[in-house]
């Protein structure tokens, strides 16, 4: 029996660093890999860039604005649906 770690795993990795005018930028990405007996799935997304300048390292996150907005819209729709259902149930109860 394969363990869950063999089937699915997430890890963060660094891409090749880029140096421009004394500034070294190292892109970072997070990967989710699912290995199935007859196939597989990979989801790879950028997470941040590490900026090294004058001996100091700064992390700038990469935010997926489209995904955040999509999730916000989904949340808003679910909240509205929940509120409507609660209101309907409240009006159903006899006084």
């Amino acid at each position, binding site marked *: 029996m394969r363990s869950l770690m063999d089937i699915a795993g997430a890890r963060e*990795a*660094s*891409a*090749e660093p*880029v140096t*421009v*005018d004394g*500034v070294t*930028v190292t*892109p*970072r*990405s997070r*990967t989710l*890999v699912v*290995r*199935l007996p*007859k*196939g*597989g*799935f*990979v*989801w*790879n*997304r*950028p997470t941040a*860039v590490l*900026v090294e*300048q004058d001996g100091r390292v700064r992390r*700038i*996150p*990469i*935010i*997926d*604005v*489209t995904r955040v*907005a*999509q999730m916000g*819209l*989904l949340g*808003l*729709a679910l909240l*509205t*649906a929940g509120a*409507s*259902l609660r209101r*309907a149930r409240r*009006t*159903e109860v006899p006084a």
Partner: protein
Amino acid sequence: MTDSRDASPGESDSLLDGAGEQASKMLERILAAAQPGAVFGQPVQSGSYTLITAAEVTSGGGFGAGMGRGPAPKPDAGQSPSAEAAPTTAEQPIGGGGYGGGGGAMSRPVAIVAIGPNGVTVRPVVDVTKLALAALTASAAMLRLRRTMRRVRKARAD
């Protein structure tokens, strides 16, 4: 897709070996998307700026193989004389097998990393079409829910 008729056990084994080879090649291609290099593009120089594109990459796939064996069908009365004249193959089992697979990959730009005179900045890439579609779908679902509930309430009041 491969198909074999009258496959002997040896041929079936080679068919499955071929399927395994193809499957491992496909899995390698799928897992290539797990490399950080698949997410970040090569640096591009534009004026005093160096730009690196960052994208979300999704890929997946699957494959399968199958085979079967059985006794040869008995010749029918309506068959051609040449078929009747052929030696019977009732003792020789016939079989077939095949393998196939499919997969796909998708990439979506997320941000652009700009290295310039003002330092390093990350500029997000907003997919307006995707957001507009999501907003339209969400508002249509909410409107439909409200309309349905109003109708139910009205029916109960009557």
